[in-house]
């Protein structure tokens, strides 16, 4: 017998397949949100995101700030009584949002993610100074960002945490191989970055 599922179930099922997590295992105790270091700056708390998935609220979930704010630290998963890895769901949601062209009210993080990956592609590794400078230039709040950096940046040089050799990027030996991985991923995704 052919089973036809209601339209509102397809979002839940897609999230479950892509994240490898059973959303229905959640019993809404909200321990994930209590432990999440970023739940205070999210528009919907992590446990609410799960409930919204069950309700099929795709148009609210995918443009949300919450899915962009998750830093994949894994605290939610480590503490979840259901053994559920919520950060994997956030990851799947972010990918779905990007693929389906949803734009988030949180624009800074997607921009920074792109710069971050560009750094890794070009140097084969993360280049902190390059990331910070390019990110500040792209976010449109240069004066504020520079002011915020003054108490942090110079002391790092003075205390020897960073040296002048760190200012310019250095490529790793296998940089070309890393760039090839990026190109292959781009091909697999049909040209999308």
């Amino acid at each position: 017998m052919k089973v036809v599922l209601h339209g509102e179930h397809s979002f839940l099922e897609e999230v479950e397949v892509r994240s490898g997590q059973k959303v229905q295992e959640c019993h809404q105790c909200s321990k994930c949100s209590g432990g999440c270091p970023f739940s205070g700056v999210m528009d919907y708390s992590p446990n609410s995101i799960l409930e919204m998935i069950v309700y099929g609220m795709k148009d609210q979930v995918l443009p949300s700030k919450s899915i962009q704010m998750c830093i994949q630290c894994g605290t939610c998963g480590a503490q979840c009584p259901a053994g559920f890895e919520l950060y994997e769901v956030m990851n799947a949601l972010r990918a779905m949002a990007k693929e389906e062209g949803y734009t988030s009210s949180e624009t800074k993080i997607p921009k920074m993610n792109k710069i971050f990956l560009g750094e890794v592609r070009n140097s084969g590794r993360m280049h902190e100074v390059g990331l910070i400078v390019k990110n500040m230039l792209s976010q449109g709040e240069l004066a504020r960002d520079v002011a915020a950096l003054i108490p942090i940046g110079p002391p790092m040089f003075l205390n020897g945490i960073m040296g002048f050799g760190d200012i310019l990027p250095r490529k790793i030996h296998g940089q070309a191989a890393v760039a090839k991985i990026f190109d292959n991923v781009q091909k697999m995704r049909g040209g999308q970055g």
Partner: protein
Amino acid sequence: MSKKTLVIGGGIAGITAAQKIAQNGGDVILIEKEDALGGNFAKLTYTFPVLGDAKALVSQEVQKVQTTPSIEILTNTTLTACQGSVGDFSVELKTLSGTRQEIVGAIIVAAGFHYMEPTAYTEYSYGRSPKVVTSLEFEKMAAENRLPQGNVRVVFVHCVGSRDKAKGYVYCSKICCSYSAKHAIMMKKANPQSKSYVFYIDIRALGKGYEEFIRSAMEEHNVRYIRGRVAKVLESEGKLLVRAEDSLMGNPVEVEADLVVLASAMEPPVGSRDLAAMLGIATDEYGFFQDVESNVRPCHSSKPGIFLAGSCTQPMEIASAVAMGGLSASEALAVTR
């Protein structure tokens, strides 16, 4: 056929079973592995939902069995071997003075339960901070008048080890909602200046007077109930910081606390699987003793002539353990007389 019944465990279920058998003309050997009768009940200060004096209640029951001639009490005693079948079990008991053989017609297993040690919950600072205690430790503090004094905040955390398949047990321990309310009320009575907070997922108060009891904690004793499982307890500069999400508001919440009480899960008694193997009876996936049919044969083990009573079968409150003690006594009498 022996007319004697062996009762394993001197907690309230075992004590009740022994009393009922004796009252109806049977003979009992009551064994207890600790040096005194009373079990977990004897470690409590108050009962719920009526705040009864636990120590007075249990000692009254202990005294009844101690003064009944047809009940032989053996403390510091464990079962070391068991053979035979209903009406004719041959058991070996290890006492302080050596081993001893007995023939009994029926056996009642009333081995009680164990409070889980929440050592796996490093996020709650248990074992690291002396200000994070289990509910059982809270009972001891209350009995010894060591509850914090002055303008203090006390946080009670539900479901530590219960309803947690990652680090504890899938099942609900059933009584923690009620005893946490009891503790919050006890705290308020011992120190009216204190403020109590209870973090819950949902409140399970399934018993006569239980819902009213928990409502009274909120309404009469001003205990603040917050819906959300506690995520973290951090200790800094002698204070505890409790972090959770208020899931009704959808907002993070922090409470600075002086004492955090973890309602740890009720788990099977230590060594329950070994005891079950010795008796030739079944346990469930957790190690609780398995009834043969849970609706109409709740105290029948998987072997005829061996009966179950109390919290060694599942988490339960005192009243249910007493009821089950009585039921197992009548089942034992039916096969020994």
